[in-house]
């Protein structure tokens, strides 16, 4: 309403008054220009989110899909979910996976952003050209490449370590239940790091160089300059990265599919893999699958609310 009054003062409003007869009002224009987006988003985002909730409270399996009738099941799907040790394991694994990848990404992103920010070092320019590369790799291809890297028999990583004389026996990186979950974090970090580096690098450009010069005059060491100038000024962007990357890491799927398919045993079952396998592989229990996806959505939803309320700068 405030913006309406403000626009009255502008010449465009006067001109708009003159053409009022043949031009749509601002309100109708806004509605019409948003109609395609709203229709698409209602169909693909809003309705499915509602419908996933609906499915999670109904019995939906192969038989029900054929008849098209989904009997009401109350909280049955959720009860079965929390009875299922595999689901608890998948959630635990997701938390571990997320904690490792997000922590590593923030640390690496700050370190590499500082590195490519060095002006007089020619190798930093090479690194700067390369940081976007992982963003261009399809996640499923990335997963497959790393399954070749990790392969016990023919793996590329073992070959390199043999050639460097670091190992004498092959290591079963992704095939060992004790290390598999950690093994799948590396490809994920590799692929999603560019985004975090870019954001930190952009934030570094905004720091006033005079601050560092003043600190150097005062005799601050490089570590003190980082600790007391750079890090506090990077804090807002680090929080943004933490929230965004945490919620995306919760839904990791492609690398799991390509490298371990949840295995060995069930060592790398994560939340999205659980929803996928429960719904689209035997026993095709879409009701329970929806319930598990909804739990995932609720967790991620909490992060989304924090992000919108406190971090995202609106147009004002």
């Amino acid at each position, binding site marked *: 309403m405030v913006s309406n009054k403000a626009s009255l003062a502008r010449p*465009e409003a006067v001109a708009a008054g003159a053409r009022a007869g043949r*031009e749509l009002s601002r309100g109708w224009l806004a509605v019409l220009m948003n109609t*395609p987006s709203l229709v698409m988003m209602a169909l693909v985002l809003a309705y499915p989110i509602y419908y996933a909730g609906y499915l999670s409270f109904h019995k939906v399996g192969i038989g029900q899909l054929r008849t098209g009738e989904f009997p009401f099941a109350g909280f049955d799907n959720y009860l079965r979910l929390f009875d299922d040790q595999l689901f608890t394991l998948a959630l635990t694994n997701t938390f571990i996976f997320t904690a490792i990848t997000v922590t590593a990404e923030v640390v690496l992103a700050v370190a590499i952003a500082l590195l490519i920010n060095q002006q007089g070092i020619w*190798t930093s320019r090479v690194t700067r050209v390369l940081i976007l590369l992982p963003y261009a790799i399809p996640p499923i291809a990335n997963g497959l490449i790393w399954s070749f890297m990790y392969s016990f028999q023919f793996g590329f990583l073992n070959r390199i370590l043999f050639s460097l004389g670091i190992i004498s026996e092959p290591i079963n990186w992704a095939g060992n239940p004790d290390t598999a979950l950690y093994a799948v974090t590396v490809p994920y970090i590799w692929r999603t790091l560019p985004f975090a580096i870019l954001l930190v690098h952009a934030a570094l450009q905004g720091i006033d160089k005079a601050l560092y010069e003043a600190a150097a005059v005062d005799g601050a060491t490089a570590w003190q300059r980082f600790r007391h100038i750079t890090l506090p000024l990077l804090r807002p962007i680090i929080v943004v990265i933490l929230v965004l990357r945490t919620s995306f890491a919760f839904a990791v799927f*492609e690398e799991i599919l390509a490298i371990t398919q949840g295995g060995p045993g069930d060592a790398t079952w994560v939340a999205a893999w659980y929803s996928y396998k429960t719904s689209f592989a035997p026993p095709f229990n879409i009701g329970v699958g929806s319930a598990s996806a*909804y739990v*995932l959505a609720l967790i991620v939803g909490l992060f989304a609310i924090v*992000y919108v309320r406190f971090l995202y700068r609106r147009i004002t």
Partner: protein
Amino acid sequence: MLKPSPIARIFLHLANVATIAFFLLPLFAVVIGAIQSEKSLQADTRAVFPPEYTLDNFLVILSGGEQKGAIFEQVTYLPDNIKQFYRAFLNSTVVALSVTALTLAFGSMSAYTVARLRFRWLIVFMQANVVARFVPIIVLMIPLYVTFRFGGLLNSLTGVIVALTGFLLPYAILILAPYFDSIPRDLEDAARIDGCTRFTAFLRITLPLSTPGLAACGVIMFIISWHELLIPLILNSKTEFMTLPVVIASLVGDVHVFFNLMMAICLLALLPSVILVLMLQKFVVQGLSAGAIKG
């Protein structure tokens, strides 16, 4: 500026070398894996470089399995989906281009109204877009599968395009809205005094001025669509509608694992998006930071 000491310089160079090695390692693996035969892979499992190089993996993929080349002469089994390369490449291109065009068209109209018209419901709409960015695809896929099954949209490129467009629209709006907001209104005002309506001023003045923003958004939309696996994987089961990521995923857990063939098809699938990103690096950087921090 502060000059690093000689020791610090050596340390910085080493850190750069380590970073570069980390970024290039998987690409090195995919290239070396793609240009050798299975026999070479098995000959010495401790050597980085194969005893001999060959392009036969690409030959068998690009000829649709017609020409096997020397290294596959003895091989009786080849994964069927390898033969679908051209079809999948075409499907991926159609999907990625359609989604890019649709998200740019619909997204720019929405982003323009958010940046210029400022109704309260548009602010709420913008917040909804931010929340929508967080929705994991798997949450949407189960209900979409059931809905599309009853709507007859399974096994079609249309279904995939519709689903991806709706899923990506919030992101496109988040990238474009700050861009439109940064364009001065004066030119639009001038055009309106000359008789343009608000909508024609948007089409003739604002959109042409926003080419860099549209490029930034477009390249990101194209890359995400080119990469997307879950949507086509769940909605389409027939080979003729497979996209490249689905073909690649179908090789996982196949009866026989040909790492050399897998690496060759991965290399062919990642080349278009790598070339695009390297060519349009500036726009990718702009779009990624615009979509994350401003709006």
